[in-house]
């Protein structure tokens, strides 16, 4: 007789309610994670994926974090919660040794007080009182597993986004937890980065770790998962194998994005980077080069060695006409975001010039250029800083109250957030944060829209909103430059595609 192995983690969540709220954020969820299995929890923005992930991982504790009715079974021990003061308390440190967690923002998992990657990896082991020799071995093994071996002496603050994610995974798996929960690990990774991550997940599962991935995109890799759990409104809409879920059509209903098949939607222009639409020139780059300044010397006599200052952009020339959509693609760290920051004057080229509506913006403060060029940042949380959604969109709209009111209303309606004007931006799910950031840009009615990875963290409905905004803004005669690693999306929307690789442009 074949015996089923005991689950690494099982959870039965009858309901989970945040403090001060009456409606449960999660209800009727049952989950069993067997060692060595891969489970994908799929759902649109606000479906409760992140809450479920943080609850499973002990980052959100029943009691202080909310009222839970249900049970967890971890390593053969069952803890039951009835939503009363008599409920058991979870020790997050001991729970964390069994269940590792990689949050959506990998930097959020780091201690921030360790000065090398090796020490950051060892932080959890130090707190568990592991002896030095065992720590050194674990750091070595984890670094090899996560591809960090050549970065062990680097300061974590200097890592790229992809490296940071691998470090966060390393920190989560170094104590060999039975379960690893990852929240949107594929967001903003390019194809190479996604393949490295997929290989890493496969290795972990082969070693017996039960891996759970929360995602709002049914990435190709997730089709190899054993089980899919589709969430809508905090409850299970469907569960089964990927094939069963796809056949039932549950993804579309839940707002989960299915990567589009490769299609070429429009004829592409040649490699001269000239405009594909015949309108007046909205934006022109003339021979733009850029090099980040060397790290400043810290002392007066003895200087600290900084990283070598390689040029990020090499002599880029480009024109963009009114009403045109240009997509810039390229691998991670190829200088795409740096390029966009030149368009609104946040960065000034070290050589060459940027012209907006025929006017050289060199020497003009970014605050002035931003009247014509609206920039959507790569990370919405870098763009949002106010206390309410409404204040966020209103910032910088001038003193004319009535005109500002109308602009705020119009922008919020365009992205479908007008019913959330009083909410705190940090409380919104990632997809709505991205749309809010887009609204702050739209409210100023810029003639050039520069969008940095606009599709990242958008769910199905969010993506539709973005599509509508981009198309209507170009129909009004404005130009759009968008930077994306998502080639399918770029092809589906742009008039023209260029690729930025190692700071140089080439046509696709």
């Amino acid at each position, binding site marked *: 007789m074949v015996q089923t192995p005991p689950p690494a983690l099982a959870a039965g969540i009858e309901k989970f309610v945040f403090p001060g709220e009456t409606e449960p954020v999660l209800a009727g969820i049952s989950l069993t994670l067997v060692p060595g299995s891969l489970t994908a929890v799929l759902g649109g923005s606000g479906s409760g994926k992140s809450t479920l992930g*943080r609850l499973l*991982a002990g*980052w*959100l504790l029943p009691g202080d974090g909310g009222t839970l009715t249900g049970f967890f079974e971890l390593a053969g021990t069952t803890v039951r919660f009835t939503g009363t003061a008599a409920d058991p308390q979870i*020790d*997050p*440190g*001991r*729970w*964390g*040794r069994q269940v590792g967690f990689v*949050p959506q923002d990998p930097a*959020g*998992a780091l*201690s*921030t*007080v*360790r*000065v090398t990657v*090796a*020490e950051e990896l060892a*932080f*959890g*082991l*130090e*707190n*568990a*009182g*592991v*002896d*030095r020799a065992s*720590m*050194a071995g674990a*750091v070595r093994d984890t670094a090899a597993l996560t591809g960090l071996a050549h970065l062990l002496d680097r300061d974590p*603050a200097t890592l790229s986004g992809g490296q940071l994610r691998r470090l966060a995974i390393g*920190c989560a798996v170094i104590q060999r937890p039975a379960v690893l929960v990852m929240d949107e690990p594929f967001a903003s990774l390019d194809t190479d980065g996604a393949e490295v991550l997929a290989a890493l997940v496969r290795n972990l599962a082969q070693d017996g770790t039960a891996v759970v991935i929360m995602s709002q995109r049914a990435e190709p890799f997730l089709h190899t998962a054993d089980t899919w759990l589709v969430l809508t409104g905090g409850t299970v809409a469907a569960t089964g194998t990927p094939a069963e879920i796809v056949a039932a059509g549950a993804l579309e209903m839940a707002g989960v994005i299915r990567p589009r098949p490769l299609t070429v939607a429009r004829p592409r222009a040649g490699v001269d980077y000239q405009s594909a639409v015949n309108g007046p020139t909205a934006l022109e780059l003339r021979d733009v080069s850029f090099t980040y300044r060397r790290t400043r010397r*810290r*002392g*007066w*006599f*003895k*200087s*600290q060695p900084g990283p070598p200052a390689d040029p990020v952009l090499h002599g880029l020339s480009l024109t963009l006409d009114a009403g045109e959509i240009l997509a810039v693609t390229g691998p991670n760290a190829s200088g795409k975001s740096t390029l966009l920051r030149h368009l609104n004057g*946040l960065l000034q080229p070290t050589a060459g010039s940027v012209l907006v509506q025929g006017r050289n913006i060199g020497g003009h*403060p*970014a*605050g002035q250029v*931003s009247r014509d060029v*609206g*920039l959507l*940042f790569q990370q919405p949380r*870098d763009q*949002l*800083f106010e206390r309410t959604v409404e204040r966020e969109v209103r*910032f*910088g*709209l001038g003193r004319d109250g009535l005109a500002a009111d109308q602009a705020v209303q119009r922008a919020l309606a365009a992205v479908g957030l007008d019913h959330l004007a009083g909410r705190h931006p*940090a409380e919104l799910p990632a997809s709505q944060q991205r749309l809010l950031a887009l609204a702050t*840009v739209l409210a*100023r009615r810029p003639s050039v829209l520069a969008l940095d990875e606009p599709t990242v963290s958008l769910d199905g409905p969010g993506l539709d909103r973005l599509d509508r905004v981009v198309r209507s803004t170009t129909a009004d005669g404005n130009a759009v430059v968008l930077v994306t690693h998502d080639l399918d999306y770029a092809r589906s929307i742009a008039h023209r595609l260029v690729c930025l690789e190692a700071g140089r442009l080439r046509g696709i």
Partner: protein
Amino acid sequence: MRLHPLTSLAAAGSTAVITTAAASWPVSLTVIAAAVGLSFAQGAARRMLPAAAVILVPLVLSLLALHGLFFPEGTTVLAQWGPARVTAQGLQFALERAAQLSAAVLVLLLGSFTVSVPDLVAVLSTRGVNARFAFVLASTLTLLPAISSRLERIRQAQEARGLVIRPGIPGRVAAFRWQAVPLLLSLVEEAGTRAAALQARGFGSAGPITSYRQVLDSPVQRWARVVLLLAALAAIVFRLWQPTAGA
């Protein structure tokens, strides 16, 4: 060779004690010159000297005002306004005290600006110092860069929405009023998520903690620390025995 953090702190502490106890012009000036010279050699002058100025300028001015104007034992009167008299002896006393104080402050600042904070945290953790205290100490190294990069991000977001900031430091200072509240709120919010991450990684758990970072120590340095502490003690005893020495 890099000094063990406790050796540099012991050296700074005992030099400050000995200089104060000696209360002698030449000793104070020598220590001041040595501390400033070492700060340049170590590349810490740029950060240390402004900090020293912030501490010492008001202290030295108040010493001069107090002892320079009101020194009852003074006999050589240089100038007089009613009860306030500037005497040569008063000025000399004030300058001696100022030199003594400057020497102690500079040498302590040199110690704290040149000690390797990660090494110090590792040493303290393994010696059973409270993990939370060690964390706060380690934060001194990472907190300021983290705050300034957060501030830079908020500033860029606001500039992208039309906030015109004049170039240079005065422009940034004037624009700071727009950034202060968002900065504070975002730091508070981040502290909440960071707390969950730290707890899940076992921070603050009961039980012994270890340190991955290896800090090199040597018998010579251990002996040096003992000698430095004994020298400081001897200076105090000597000073109490001969209360007028050097004054």
